[in-house]
């Protein structure tokens, strides 16, 4: 198994079709295949053992991914916001490495031994002019395809390892070859250093779907590009959908008649946003996808039929599913286990464990976190309803332990967010002498609105147990989010600890 097999099949099946376009530039499937081969020859000649990418979404993303697969070198897409010592430290770990960087970045990069820097333009020129060698990639399923650095809460970032067999299994288990119609187009706006960005490349290639890249996300640019390029499919993270819905509501003439499907994931999605989006785009199929870097992207989906059924239902248990992550892919097994590793009954919370060919659970230089039977503990806490629908409580490490009682921050946040004066909210645990930890809430109020600390406490106490009412309530102008819409709780916590 090698990712190149997927591209080879696409290039054979629809050679003339546009594979990827960025601004005014484009590559057909045949062109992507030939370019990847030519780039692989350059990488091999450089003597590099790994390749890295420091770029926004551009044609270099798919070319480098497949060139690495062809050359037999792991590919490490890096966060383009990284600078200075952080970046140097990662490059030192990857050396000897062939680094493709956005043109404007090249001049600022410091000399790191073992790093060959090539600008995106030069890289694409070499890929376009060079000759593809014979298809001589190794068919080694255990070879590393991708290294994705995860931002650890403490210490140096870890590199999640995804091997060719993981990514190929993911694609074969979730995508049908050539499933896309000639006119289909997927708008890619998630950054390439995120697993969703990489998954969109391999899935789109195997489906034969044209990828339309958006360099940097803004809701206006997204809507404009979607209209202009007759985009049919898109994957977005929650914060993106919030802004897209805002833009669409503000300008009723910006309809998206070609759009057929939106999938979302990568963070907590407020229910109200999904409902607004479904009302605004009734012709669009919505899919909620849940997955982790270590699981080669998606492991559960809440599909379009589930969305429509839940939205139309008056039965609370069915209606609630709009806020669920859906059910596991047919190729993935999922279990909820308690602290002792015992499988729990429906409705009971615990740690989400998954097993399947696409699950890696491995970090560079460390033993795999999967157990002897192949089960991977996700460190995510959740529960399943009677129908097998999965609900997420949050990260296990974020659970607040107050006097021996486990409190999920998400549960308290949902209640606080339902208050009319609250725009956004983060709940974290802070140390307490009496209880070990107590609940703290940081709130962003809606413009022109106010709410008192006591009002918030009473509001939570009325709906949840009193132990869940925040001992501390603070107000801020905004909350810290990652670029892909993940609330950065460690920063919220650090802020609170610094202000006591």
């Amino acid at each position, binding site marked *: 198994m090698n990712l190149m097999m997927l591209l080879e099949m696409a290039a054979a099946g629809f050679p003339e079709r546009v594979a990827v376009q960025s601004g005014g530039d484009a590559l057909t499937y045949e062109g992507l295949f030939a370019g990847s081969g030519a780039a692989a020859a350059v990488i091999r000649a450089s003597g590099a053992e790994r390749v890295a990418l420091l770029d926004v979404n551009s044609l270099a993303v798919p070319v480098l991914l497949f060139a690495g697969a062809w050359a037999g070198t792991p590919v490490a897409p890096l966060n383009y916001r990284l600078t200075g010592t952080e970046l140097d430290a990662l490059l030192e770990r990857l050396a000897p490495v062939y680094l493709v960087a956005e043109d404007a970045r090249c001049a600022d990069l410091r000399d790191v031994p073992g790093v060959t820097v090539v600008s995106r333009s030069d890289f694409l020129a070499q890929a376009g002019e060079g000759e593809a060698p014979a298809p001589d990639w190794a068919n080694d399923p255990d070879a590393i395809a991708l290294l994705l650095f995860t931002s650890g809460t403490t210490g140096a970032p870890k590199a999640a390892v995804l091997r060719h067999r993981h990514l190929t299994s993911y694609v074969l288990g979730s*995508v049908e070859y*050539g499933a896309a119609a000639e006119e289909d187009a*997927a708008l890619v706006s998630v950054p390439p250093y995120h697993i969703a960005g990489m998954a969109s490349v391999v899935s789109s290639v195997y489906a034969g779907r044209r990828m339309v890249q958006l360099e940097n996300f803004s809701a206006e640019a997204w809507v404009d590009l979607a209209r202009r390029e007759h985009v049919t499919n898109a994957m977005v993270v929650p914060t993106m959908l919030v802004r897209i819905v805002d833009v669409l509501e503000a300008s009723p003439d910006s309809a998206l008649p070609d759009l057929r499907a939106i*999938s979302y994931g990568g963070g907590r999605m407020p229910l109200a946003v999904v409902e607004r989006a479904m009302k605004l785009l009734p012709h669009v*199929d919505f899919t909620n*996808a849940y997955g982790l870097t270590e699981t080669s*992207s998606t492991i559960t989906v809440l*599909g379009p039929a589930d969305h429509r059924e839940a939205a139309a239902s008056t039965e609370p248990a069915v209606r609630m599913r709009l806020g669920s992550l859906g059910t596991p892919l047919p190729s993935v097994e999922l279990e909820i286990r308690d602290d002792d590793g015992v499988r729990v009954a429906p409705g009971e919370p615990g740690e989400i464990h998954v097993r399947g060919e696409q699950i890696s659970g491995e970090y560079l230089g460390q033993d795999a976190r999967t157990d002897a039977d192949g089960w991977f503990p996700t460190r995510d806490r959740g529960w399943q309803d009677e129908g097998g629908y999965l609900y997420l409580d949050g990260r296990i490490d974020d659970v607040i332990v107050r006097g021996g009682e486990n409190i999920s921050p998400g549960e308290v946040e949902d209640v606080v967010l339902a208050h009319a004066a609250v725009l956004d909210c983060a709940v974290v645990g802070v140390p307490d002498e009496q209880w070990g930890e107590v609940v703290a809430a940081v709130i962003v109020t809606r413009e022109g609105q106010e709410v008192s600390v006591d009002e918030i406490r009473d509001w939570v106490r009325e709906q949840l147990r009193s132990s869940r009412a925040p001992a501390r309530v603070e107000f801020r102008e905004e909350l810290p989010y990652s670029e892909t819409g993940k609330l950065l709780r460690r920063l919220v916590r650090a802020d609170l600890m610094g202000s006591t």
Partner: protein
Amino acid sequence: MTEIKVGARLRSAVCSTEVMVVAAPDRPVELTCGGVPMIDMDGTPPAGVELSGEAAAGSLMGKRYTNDAADIEVLCTKPGDGSLGLDGEILEVKEAKTLPSSD
């Protein structure tokens, strides 16, 4: 009869068909195309073999093929004139899954 491994790639000895093994039984089997045992990608077809008229319905790119017992599954990575078979049984196209696109 040989053991076949998941992830292995094989080609037809009598047409252009190529496959990747997605699921395999843990017993020795004979995987055929066009009625003739398939060979390794870098293997040489034995002399004198030809496409059997009873296994000439062809293979289709990107389709998965399976047997009645559903203990083998191969993905056609290059189409050809021969039909895929296992121990004399012609393999059928496995119905496509309809999963929503999640990326």
